[in-house]
């Protein structure tokens, strides 16, 4: 127990009640709970990074790509935006796993085992794959990225159109190719217009990480659920009854804090990006 290390004088000042609660919230299970924040944060950051890459690529394809690529990008953006994130979030890891199992079954299954297992999944028992929680975490991050990449894409598509046309014409006049204009001028100037929208999508990603527990990842939410459930042990009797609402309130406060900090960071990035830009004249303060 961490509380045992406190000096006796401090313990006397705080009194037994405070010491008890300090001990309760720093026992082993609670420390595990605090540590599980890392999964939530990892999924957030991975999801954000994938979303940014996917979003910029899809937006560039939709605005500047050849026709089939343009249709593909527009289809992706509209379909993903029209479907709840939780659906895709459950679908993508399952579909990915089944895809791998199918590939694997081509290797390991024989005609006999396939015939025995018709209409079931996996195609034969030998082709059964199971992922560990790290693999699921990566899959969850990637599926967050794919879902919110579509939102980033529509933000970025709008921002690409807000870049003053003169800048692009000047770049063309300097003899840059279309790809060079896109890479060197267009995308670099786009960020300042896209930032408010990207901040919004980031907040959505932050909030979507609450869904991680649906993929059997023992994240911050799943631990709170487990700790809050009524706790009964043979040795100590009923430790506490259903305390879940207290733990969920902590979760709510945690997420509000993450959003608050993100907001501050984004406004700092924004004012840095806007250095020396006469935004007021463009009506974009």
């Amino acid at each position: 127990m961490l509380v045992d290390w406190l000096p006796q004088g401090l313990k006397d000042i705080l009194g037994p009640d405070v010491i008890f609660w300090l001990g309760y919230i720093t026992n082993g299970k609670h420390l595990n709970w605090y540590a599980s924040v890392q999964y939530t944060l990892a999924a957030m950051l991975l999801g954000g990074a994938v979303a940014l890459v996917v979003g910029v690529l899809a937006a560039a394809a939709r605005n500047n790509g050849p026709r089939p690529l343009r249709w593909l990008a527009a289809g992706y953006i509209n379909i993903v935006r029209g479907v709840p994130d939780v659906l895709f979030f459950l679908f993508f890891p399952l579909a990915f796993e089944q895809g791998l199992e199918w590939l694997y079954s081509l290797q390991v299954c024989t005609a006999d085992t396939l015939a025995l297992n018709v209409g079931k999944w996996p195609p034969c028992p030998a082709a059964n794959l199971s992922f560990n929680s790290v693999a699921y975490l990566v899959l969850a991050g990637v599926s967050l990225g794919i879902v919110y990449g579509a939102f980033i894409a529509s933000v970025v598509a709008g921002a690409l159109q807000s870049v003053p046309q003169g800048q692009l014409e000047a770049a063309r006049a300097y003899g840059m190719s279309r790809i060079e204009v896109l890479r060197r001028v267009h995308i670099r100037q786009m960020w300042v217009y896209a930032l408010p929208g990207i901040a919004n999508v980031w907040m959505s990603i932050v909030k979507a990480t609450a869904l991680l527990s649906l993929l059997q990842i023992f994240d911050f939410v799943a631990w709170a659920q487990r700790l809050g459930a009524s706790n009964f042990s043979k040795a100590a009797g009923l430790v506490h009854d259903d305390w879940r609402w207290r733990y969920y309130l902590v979760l709510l406060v945690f997420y509000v804090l993450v959003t608050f900090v993100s907001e501050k960071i984004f406004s700092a990035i924004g004012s840095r990006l806007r250095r020396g830009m006469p935004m007021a004249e463009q009506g974009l303060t």
Partner: protein
Amino acid sequence: MNLIETLLAEIVRMAPAALFNIYFAFAAIPVGFLLAIVFALGKNARNPLLNRLSRIYIYFFRGSPFFIQLFAFYSLALAFNVSTWKPLGIDWLVLNPLFLGPAILMLNTTAYTAEIFYGALITVPRGEVEAARAYGMTRGQRFRSVTWPNLIRLAWPAYTNEVVFLFQTTALVYFTLPVIGDQRDLMNTAEVLFQKDYNVFLHFGVAAGYFLAISLAIFFLFGLIYRRLMRHMPQQATMRFSWQRLFGQAPQ
């Protein structure tokens, strides 16, 4: 042929489930809409208490995930079950997902909608409000005949998005609230069917198709209302359903 038959059977099987999602969304919308007006006005109010409370409410509900709000309010409702709901004899209502689901959705959509309305409220042309004042209109008259019509026109496109998001959020309700009998929504049905035959593409695909179709229907419906709201305005209404915008050309 077999594939089409399977698909059709799946679509028919999921149709009643879709009604639950539609019910959740449309039971939450009217109260949420009205309360959002109150909170938007509250966020704009001079009274510091009113202002502070509205801001906190909106920030809290917009800053936390709906999934956790659902957990928190459901567990709160459970915690008060024995002490409050049972003696009052309303536990069958309060703990019923068909009541609790829309109630929590309503709390959530109120905050998002209030933020949208507040954003519109502060961009209502000042000159028009001043003109109304100069005519000697009372506060209520000013709100009814100048502020509100401007506000709703400004806010409508964003509000349309919020309604579609609300509809998609209903997918989360039955992950937390108990399922009574076979009252299952789209996500729940898809998962139950998936557990039987592990056909992820069929079940989740059809569920996604339902969400997509109903989202498009909401866009279409709200687009019609928007055109009606904007019918006297000089410019063409821009929020119109177009295949061209859906596939290919980015809106200019």
